């Protein structure tokens, strides 16, 4: 079919993403009239069955929303419940939580880099074919990933759905001697991560620009993972050439990030003050880049991302693979720092007595900002739950990115693209954003205007 006429492109199953989604693209007379990410992952109704459960249960239950980022769900659920109960967990317990989260970041980000994303840049259908050409890089990636898993297994009991996390802290806190063997592996992983940054920086990056606002946690002084306040970086610099970063207190999150239901998807779509926004690696790098560990910052600069300390921002979604590799380096350095400084807390947890109240929290899942809100009765029975995962927030931006990239290709020089080329382009555009579709399709409780 000529690109001059009308054509509709469907891709029924998207590979190398987590969960199930399809693409729908309509082109009329050289103009993209529709670009949709169709999420057909069946709904699983998590918020609905959290109601009526005890206030200690959300960390275990919500971890089952996603096998790739269970710790993100556990950490956000714990903090939201603790805020509801007016309790703060800090000191060594908070550091241990951060260590567990670093393990998930290392595992999940290196999974995305090596097994899901890199094959796109090197023309392979999977890491298995990539390994035939260059086994060493895949083995290096798997070794980093394994180090992340080792942290989760040591501290959490297992890598998928850790069992050692509870509201208020942990069931068991390790002795320093239990964590020490991880340090040796982390030192090797640090070298491997720096190598990975150099490797991915050498890929060929198509031009693309995300021109909307970024949303990420911000915790001045450190690269926010498990802490901080949501912050919005404006899409454009103001008249003075400065790009503003405005705090968005977590209690106001739902006033700004508004979700609505659409017929073509089982996941809700959301916008930030009416505009599609992006959360995830690019947003974090923009908002917190200046607080990266020095080795990660140097690596970012050498990789051509510019110096985040002087306001460098990366808006090319294809380059998110470099930002992820930089973040792996940071998470490895941060995990080492925590292990080296670790002094066991006097108790594995603090008490979290229930009370009749509402509370919310957000943290940085590897794929972006994850928000939970709960309400409970005096005896701890949950009466309400809302969960806003990163992919649900990113969906609109991803669809816009698809539309923009396909339009640019249609308008560009050269032969008109055939369906296979457009399909490949769209798949790559989606995988740039590392969508975690099981998370986005857990079916949110929602408030929508009817009519």
């Amino acid at each position, binding site marked *: 079919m000529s690109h001059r006429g009308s054509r509709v492109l469907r891709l*029924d*199953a998207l*590979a*190398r993403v*987590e*969960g*199930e989604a399809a693409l729908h693209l309509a082109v009329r007379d050289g103009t993209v009239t529709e670009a949709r990410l169709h999420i057909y*992952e*069946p*709904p*699983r*109704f998590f*918020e*609905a*069955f959290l109601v009526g459960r*005890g206030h200690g*249960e959300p960390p*275990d*239950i919500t971890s*089952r929303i*996603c*096998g*790739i980022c*269970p710790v993100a769900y556990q950490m956000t659920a714990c903090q939201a419940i603790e805020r509801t109960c007016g309790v703060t967990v800090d000191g060594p317990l908070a550091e241990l939580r951060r260590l567990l989260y670093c393990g998930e970041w290392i595992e999940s980000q290196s*999974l995305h880099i090596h*097994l*899901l994303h890199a*094959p796109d840049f090197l023309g392979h*259908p*999977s*890491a*298995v074919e990539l*390994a035939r050409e260059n*086994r060493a890089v*895949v*083995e290096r990636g*798997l*070794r980093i*990933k*394994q180090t992340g*898993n080792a942290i989760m297994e040591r501290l959490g*009991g*297992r*890598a*998928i*759905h850790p*069992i*050692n996390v509870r509201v208020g802290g*942990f*069931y*068991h806190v390790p002795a320093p001697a239990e964590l020490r063997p991880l340090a040796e592996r982390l030192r090797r992983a640090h070298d491997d991560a720096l190598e990975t940054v150099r490797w991915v920086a050498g890929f060929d990056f198509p031009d693309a620009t995300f021109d909307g606002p970024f949303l990420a946690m911000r915790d001045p002084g450190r690269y926010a993972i498990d802490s901080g306040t949501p912050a919005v970086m404006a899409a454009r610099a103001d008249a003075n050439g400065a790009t503003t970063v405005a705090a968005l207190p977590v209690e106001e999150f739902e006033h700004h990030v508004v979700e609505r*239901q*659409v017929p073509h998807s*089982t996941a809700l779509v959301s916008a930030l003050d009416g505009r599609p926004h992006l959360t995830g690696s690019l947003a974090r790098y923009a908002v917190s880049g200046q607080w990266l560990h020095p080795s990660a910052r140097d690596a970012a600069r050498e990789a051509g991302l510019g110096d985040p300390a002087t306001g460098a921002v990366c808006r090319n979604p294809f380059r998110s693979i470099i930002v992820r590799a930089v973040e792996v380096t940071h998470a490895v350095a941060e995990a080492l720092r925590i292990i080296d400084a670790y002094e066991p807390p006097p108790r594995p947890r603090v008490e979290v007595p229930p009370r009749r109240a509402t509370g919310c929290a957000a943290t940085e899942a590897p794929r972006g900002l994850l928000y939970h809100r709960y309400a409970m009765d005096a005896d701890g029975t949950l009466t309400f739950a809302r969960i806003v995962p990163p992919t649900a927030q990113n969906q609109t931006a991803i669809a816009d990115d698809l539309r923009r990239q396909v339009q640019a290709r249609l308008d560009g020089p050269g032969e008109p693209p055939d369906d296979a080329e457009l399909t490949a382009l769209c*798949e790559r555009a989606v995988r740039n954003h590392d969508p975690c579709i*099981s998370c986005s399709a857990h*079916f949110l409780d*929602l*408030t*929508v205007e009817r009519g």
Partner: protein
Amino acid sequence: MEPDPRPSLAVWKFASCDGCQLTLLDCEDELLPLTGRVRIAHFLEMSSAEDAQEPATLAGTGPYDLSLVDGSITTDEDVRRIRHIRRISRRLVTIGACATAGGIQALRNFADVDAFRAAVYANPEYIATLDTSTPISAHVPVDFELRGCPIDRGQLLEVITAFLAGRKPNISSHSVCFQCKRRGTTCITVAQGIPCLGPVTHAGCGALCPAYGRGCYGCFGPMANPNLEAMVRELRHDGMTERDIVRVFRTFNAASPEYGPVPELAAQSAPVPPAEEEPR
């Protein structure tokens, strides 16, 4: 071209968190050696290869020597798809609590889904979903069921190698208690009075929770022939309320038929009278 002598492996997904198929990608040391022995012919999460695309029309390629199925059946389309997958698979193994017992999403089986959906969604008509979440075995014959939420990596490798070798997987159906003893963990119920589902839960996790000072919460589902009556009595004795007992069984393997009598047993089992005040 020479025919590929390696047996073919397919991985399929239904309603789930993807954690069980991710377990295969978590076999970091074994992943590349494994791909030398089997051809990963369909695994969407891992490969975009041509023959790995989901059969949109259900015309599908195949046949596959071994199909691993992650996730439960929650839509009409799922029912159609699993029947097709069964037809194109020589052996079909379910991996994880969703595929084997309906998963956590089977909590809907205890609710009125229509009312539930209408109460929660502005446009419930957009949502095509069945009233139940059912295991794969409710729809097609299954050659082996691997339990766990999530499955255990070692058990997964055992199942794959066993099927490739044409033998039965060596997976015991005894309880978590056996694994706790082998691990040398002091019984947390006996020593500390912590309620623990270990005596009725299928082994496989390596008895993790007790080793971390936590009672087993049953994520591997029921062992063969669990003595639930004795278990519920013991949980009562260890201080759990009727509501807590029903809740702890109604989690990741909620729809396991073995758990059917739990609410009644919990209601019958008398609360333990408060212990006499001990001098402090």
